[in-house]
C-alpha cells in the first residue's frame, strides 16, 4: 500500500537529485547561452571531476569535501583548455564541425578513462559525510542532502554572478550579441573562455558532491548529462532559473515514475515530458526567445 510517507519520501529524493541535474544543466546552459555551442562532453567533464576526487582520496587520502575546491579549479582549467584547443579552432568552421568537435571530445574522454582507469566501478568507501538523518519523519542520506544543498547554493551563486557582477553582465552581453559586445570593448574570446571555465567548474562541484555516495566509472556522466540536456531544453536554453526549475521537475517525474510504474521507465517519462514541452512550448518553460 502506498501511504503518504512513501510518497513524501519519494518526492524528497526526487527534489534532491533534481538539484544535481540542475547544477549540471547550468554549466551546459551557460556555455550554450554564451556561444551557441552544445558541450556534448559535459557528462565526461562530470566523470573526470569524480575521478579527480576519487584519486585524491585513494592516493592522498583527501575527503571529497576537502578536494571539492581542487576539483572546481581543475575543471575550470579543463573548461578553458577545451575552449582554446578544441572549440576555438572550429569556431569559423561549418556548423557540423562545431557539433561534432565536442562529440568527439566526449568519445575521447570516455575511452581515455576506460583505458587509464579501467571500466571498474569505484566507490569512496569512508567519506566524512555519511549516514542518514530523519527530517519530519522522512529519512534522508546525509551525502544526498549535502550534495543537493551544495548544488542549490552553487546554482544560486552562478545566477547571482550573472545578474549582479560586471563580469556576469559581460557574459550576458556576449550571449546576446557578440559583435555589439566587441564594439563596447569586450574581448569575446576571453568571455568564451570564461563561460567554458565556469560551465566546467559547475560540474567540478557536482562531481565532488556526487563522489560522496555515487559509483565512479567511465560512463557515469551519461546518467546525469542526459537528464541535464532535458533540463536545459525544458527550462529554456540559456536560462539558469529555468534549468533549476526543470531539473527539479525531472527529478520528481523520474522518482514518481519509479514508484508508480517501474524504475525501468524512469528515463522514458522524462523524455516524454521533454517532447511534450518541445511541441507545446519550444522555447522551454522560462526561455527568452
Amino acid at each position, binding site marked *: 500500500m502506498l501511504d503518504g510517507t512513501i510518497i513524501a519520501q519519494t518526492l524528497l529524493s526526487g527534489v534532491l537529485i533534481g538539484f544535481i541535474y540542475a547544477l549540471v544543466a547550468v554549466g551546459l546552459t551557460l556555455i550554450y547561452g554564451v556561444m551557441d555551442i552544445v558541450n556534448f562532453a559535459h557528462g565526461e567533464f562530470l566523470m573526470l571531476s569524480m575521478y579527480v576526487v576519487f584519486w585524491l582520496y585513494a592516493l592522498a587520502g583527501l575527503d571529497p569535501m576537502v578536494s571539492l575546491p581542487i576539483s572546481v579549479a581543475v575543471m575550470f582549467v579543463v573548461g578553458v583548455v577545451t575552449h582554446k584547443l578544441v572549440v576555438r579552432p572550429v569556431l569559423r568552421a561549418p556548423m557540423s564541425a562545431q557539433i561534432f568537435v565536442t562529440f568527439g571530445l566526449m568519445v575521447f574522454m570516455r575511452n581515455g578513462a576506460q583505458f587509464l582507469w579501467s571500466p571498474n566501478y569505484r566507490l569512496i568507501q569512508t567519506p566524512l559525510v555519511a549516514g542518514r538523518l530523519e527530517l519530519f519523519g522522512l529519512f534522508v542520506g546525509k551525502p544526498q542532502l549535502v550534495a543537493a544543498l551544495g548544488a542549490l547554493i552553487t546554482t544560486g551563486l552562478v545566477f547571482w554572478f550573472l545578474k549582479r557582477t*560586471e563580469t556576469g*553582465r559581460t557574459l550576458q552581453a556576449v550571449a546576446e*550579441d557578440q559583435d555589439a559586445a*566587441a*564594439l563596447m570593448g*569586450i*574581448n569575446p574570446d576571453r568571455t568564451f573562455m570564461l563561460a567554458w571555465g565556469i560551465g566546467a567548474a559547475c560540474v567540478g562541484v557536482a562531481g565532488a558532491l556526487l563522489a560522496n555516495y555515487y559509483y565512479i566509472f567511465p560512463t557515469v556522466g551519461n546518467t546525469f548529462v542526459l537528464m541535464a540536456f532535458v533540463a536545459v531544453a525544458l527550462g529554456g536554453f540559456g536560462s539558469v532559473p529555468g534549468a533549476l526549475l526543470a531539473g527539479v521537475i525531472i527529478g520528481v517525474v523520474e522518482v514518481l515514475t519509479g514508484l508508480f510504474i517501474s524504475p525501468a521507465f524512469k528515463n522514458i517519462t522524462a523524455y516524454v515530458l521533454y517532447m511534450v514541452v518541445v511541441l507545446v512550448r519550444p522555447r522551454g518553460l522560462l526561455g527568452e526567445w
Partner: protein
Amino acid sequence: MLQVNDIFVAYGGTPALHGVSFEVPAGQIVSIVGSNGAGKSTILRAISGMLKPTRGVIEFLGEPIQRFPAFRIVQRGIAHVPEGRRLFSKLSVFENLLVGAYTKKSPTFRQKTLEQIFSIFPRLKERQSQRAGTLSGGEQQMLAIGRALMSEPKLLMLDEPSLGIMPVLVDRLFDVIKEINQSGITVLLVEQNVQRSLEIAHRAYVLQTGEIVLRGTGQELLASEQVRGAYLGL
C-alpha cells in the same frame, strides 16, 4: 584625427569598397551620404574593426588601426553606434549603459558620465530599470548613443541614427548630435537623410557604389546640382 587611405573591403569575394579615402578632422561633424548599398555602413564597420580591409590604411591619432580587433579600437577612443542599434535587449537600460562603460572602470567617471547622458536624454533616466527591448524606436536610438558615449569616445560614429524614428523626433536627434559635437566629440555620421545630415556637417562625402564621388563642405554639397538631383529630388 581619422585618416582613411585607399581602403578596399570585400564581403566574401564581392567588393564593397574600392579605394576609399577621406579624413575626419578633430572637432568636426563629417557626414557620408549615399544611397542604400553604396557602402556607407561598410566604411564604419571597417573603421571599428568589425571588417578587415584587404588593402589600405586607417590611421587614428597617427596610429594605424586597420589590423586591430574591434575591442581594442574602442579602447583607442572610437565608439560605433551600429546600424539597427544592436542593444542588449534583455538587459535593462541602466545595464546597457554600464556595458557601454566596459573600458572605463572608474566608478566616479561612470557616475559623472551617466549624469551627463541622463541630462541629454532624460527619458533614459526615467526608464533606467526597464528592459532595453521594451523601449520605443526613438528611445532605443537614444540608448544606443548613450551607451556609446559611456566609453568616453574621441570619435563617435553613427550609422543611420534617424532610421525607424518618428519624424517629429528626427529634428531633436540632429540637435543632439550637434550638442554632442559641441561638447568636444568628433562625429562621423552616415545617413540616408541627406538634407539634414548635410545641414549639420562641417565636411561631407558622397559615396556611390563603393567610391567617393564628391567631397566638400556640407553647404557646398547641399548646393551642388549633382546632390540636389540625385539625393534631394530637387
